[in-house]
């Protein structure tokens, strides 16, 4: 079985992952889920980079290095995103604080 699309199998999967993650990022509303969606988009981009690097003489090491760098940066930014979500959850919403101040002023 030698379908012409098999060469691009992993790169196509990566493209589908990017689309899936993007759709999830737009449609899902909870910030933690959006963080998951960003991770899926990142995974898709890495698969595209790596999947297009497999040729006749083994896999190209250059995209591999780029993907390793990307994975590390992705985890750093996921940690930052999670810390932001936790901080937003820990603070009361500004509308409540505003309502509290207005109620205090109209005393």
């Amino acid at each position, binding site marked *: 079985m030698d379908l012409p*699309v*098999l*060469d691009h*199998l*992993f*790169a*196509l999967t*990566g*493209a589908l992952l*990017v689309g*899936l*993650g*993007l*759709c999830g990022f*737009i*449609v*899902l*509303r*909870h910030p933690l*889920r959006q963080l*998951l969606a960003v*991770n*899926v988009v990142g*995974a898709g981009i*890495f*698969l*595209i980079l*790596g*999947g*297009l*690097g*497999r*040729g*006749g*003489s083994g*896999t*190209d*090491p*250059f995209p*591999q*290095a780029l*993907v*390793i760098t990307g*994975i*590390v*940066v992705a*985890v*750093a930014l*996921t*940690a*930052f995103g*999670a*810390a932001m*979500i*936790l*901080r*937003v*959850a*820990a603070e009361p*919403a500004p509308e409540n604080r505003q309502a509290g101040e207005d109620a205090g002023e109209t005393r």
Partner: protein
Amino acid sequence: MTAAFDILLCVMILGTAGAALFLRDPLAAIVFLIVLGNLLGLAWLTLDAVNVALAEIAIGAGVTGVLLILARARLVALGDNVVCEPMPLWARLGAIALCAGFTAVLSCVVLSITPDSGLTARIEALMPRIGIENPVTGVLLAFRAYDTLLETFVLLGALVAVWSLGPDTAWPHPPAALRIFDPGLRSVAGAFGRVLLPMALVMAAYLVWAGSDLPGGAFQAGTVFAGGLLLAAIGGAIGLPRADSPALRLVLVLGPLVFLMIGLAGAVLGRFLLFPDGTAKMLIVTIEYALAASIAVTLALLVAGSPATPDKQD
């Protein structure tokens, strides 16, 4: 025969990604993201990219999974009162249509590029000058060392950003303790953590050394040791340090600093990040060990989170 395996793997990757995004239960979604990371590691192995497989499973599945589960647990403890406005149906359908169109365009673009191991031959030709045999390590630490240097600073910057997100009263206290509350559970995890930590150190040291010629490297090694540190912290075997502890700050900047110093020394000799002939392997291994130490502590602290006020720790 391998074609059937590849197709099955890709179908499973897409299935777990869909589950990670669209399952109702958030914890199940996070678990499916971890499974996705492992399946992606398997995909990298199929693509003959063993270094990337190690990094993906350790960092993409391992560290990201622990990070998200911890964030979810802390969010639930805070009451999970994050505001989520629902989306009207027409907006959802429009978004799905838009993403489907974008995916179609991206797939056509991807299909138009022929897979090609473009730079493999040129990199293989240059490897004997450096003296190491792992081409990915060569690219990371010799040919594109500048990118790796900046990446280490990005890690450090992310940690500073996470630290800055704590409440003002919490600085510079340690993050909220990762220790399991229940003493019975904590002793189980603590016993394993105490046993694992020195073994993780040995594994990390071996991975850095082996990374010169076999798959491995500083990032994978740092992550293995970070995993040992996190498990020891969860079991109560080690505590989390204060943010202004000088020993901690030294370890955090050790990797980037050593890398930068070697780069500037190269600038004195001719060009920034120049490795003189014959010294390349020694310099690369030195940089990698320093980087592994910094990466381990940075990743563990990234997972541990922002500083917490002292009454929240126990």
